[in-house]
């Protein structure tokens, strides 16, 4: 079974026309990979479907916009994957 990172990187490469090799765990989805908000909607939908979750994007965006957390917390790929894993675990619990 593919790791969360492999699945997410594959989704980003498929939906955003970004070379798979350029996507690393430390890539920032917006600042490094240049995924715009509309493409990120594609990524979010594909991630929600692949993992059977509903990423709380509105909450995450509000926290970033309010200055409560850095965007790195949610949009650096390894952190995004960790948050996906938490959501999957919470759903299974």
């Amino acid at each position, binding site marked *: 079974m593919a790791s969360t990172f492999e699945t997410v990187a594959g989704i980003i490469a498929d939906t955003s026309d970004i070379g798979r090799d350029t996507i690393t765990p430390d890539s920032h989805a917006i600042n490094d990979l240049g995924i715009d908000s509309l493409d990120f*909607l*594609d990524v*979010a939908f594909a991630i*929600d479907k692949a993992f059977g979750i*509903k990423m709380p994007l509105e909450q995450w965006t509000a926290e970033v916009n309010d200055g409560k957390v850095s965007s790195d917390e949610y949009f650096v790929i390894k952190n995004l994957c960790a948050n996906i894993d938490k959501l999957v675990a919470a759903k299974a619990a």
Partner: protein
Amino acid sequence: MRLEYFQMIDRITLLDPDARLARADCQVPDESPVFEGHFPGHPLLPGVLMIETMAQIGGWLVLATLRFTAMPFLVQVKEAKMRTFVVPGQKLEAEARLVHDGSGYAVVEASIVSQGKKAAEAEIRYRVVPFPNETLRTTMLETARRIGVPEEFFHAA
């Protein structure tokens, strides 16, 4: 349908957020300024207005699902197919099925059927955001009443 006012939905006939399904009747008008240009001597409902019709039935489904707490705005149309010509006077049924209720976005599969044949279909995606002002929310509620959205969906359950 009043094409020049983008009033595509005449009457909601089914709205079931639990089943994630909505249907509506849409009567293509016999006359409209739209048909003067599309096309002279061969009036057809423009494909973009078929897409708009599908976006609107899906939009009402999203609004009812969210109990009018936020507004869906069309941001993406995928795999749109216009399968048949639609002409003045034709009766249509629009249908939408909510595929995913995401955080800040929604995805529906929508179609238009006429005389038992599918006239159009598309996957439609919306960005769902707070109403930008009270004027829009009030107008949406007025329109909802006019087209038969049940009052039970106007407020939180």
